[in-house]
């Protein structure tokens, strides 16, 4: 079965091996699909960590775009289109996402290793981001029992998300009183 996302992952593996980024992991709806039923999405979110360079304060996506356009990628605004998929590269902008990147797991996709956030990190990031579609995703994780509750609660406490979690619980998990 030819899966175009597997082609995307293959190119990104090569990019990481070439040292353009220090580490990558798949997040967002595509990441969630590794644990849940597939949900329609138009893009692929790839979180990246960069190699630290002395004196460099602001990281630029330019090396990523240069590498990928040289290999057939097409830039469309903030995205670069690979194998028909608009791919967005996102830097780790919070300790939670940094931890998610560090602890991401490798899953085999048609012989291609794909690094993806753990289910608990995806759920915690959804809670942190907090848009309607993120809440829907978090509910999916809970209803499907796809997360380890103890590990998830550890992330909630460790990353200052307890208030958000309690609000989420009241809104979506507790029946009307």
């Amino acid at each position: 079965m030819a899966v175009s996302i597997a082609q995307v992952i293959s190119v990104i593996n090569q990019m990481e091996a070439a040292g353009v980024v220090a580490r990558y992991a798949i997040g967002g709806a595509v990441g969630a699909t590794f644990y849940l039923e597939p949900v329609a999405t138009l893009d692929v979110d790839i979180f990246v960590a960069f190699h630290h360079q002395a004196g460099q304060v602001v990281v630029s996506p330019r090396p990523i775009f240069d590498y990928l356009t040289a290999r057939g990628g097409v830039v469309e605004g903030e995205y670069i289109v690979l194998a028909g998929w608009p791919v967005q590269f996102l830097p780790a902008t919070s300790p939670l996402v940094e931890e998610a990147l560090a602890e991401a797991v490798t899953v085999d996709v048609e012989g291609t290793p794909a690094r993806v956030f753990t289910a608990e990190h995806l759920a915690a990031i959804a809670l942190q981001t907090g848009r309607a579609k993120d809440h829907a995703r978090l509910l999916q994780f809970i209803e499907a029992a796809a997360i380890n509750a103890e590990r998830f609660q550890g992330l909630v406490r460790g990353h200052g998300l307890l208030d958000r979690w309690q609000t989420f619980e009241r809104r979506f998990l507790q029946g009307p009183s």
Partner: protein
Amino acid sequence: MTFDLQRILESKRALRRSLAQRPVVEKLALLDVLRDRVRVIRAAAAERAATMAREAPSEDHAQPRNP
């Protein structure tokens, strides 16, 4: 087929469970299909909105001006 809401909801849950349990490769392939459907739906919606905007009377024509 039934209009029993509880049975409908349970069958939806069962479908979601069965989709979630499919191999990752199959689920990623489904993303391709879903993405293509979303693109078609969005294009059709945009076209419909553009058509409605073209056909809607402008304010100048819709409301008589005061003499």
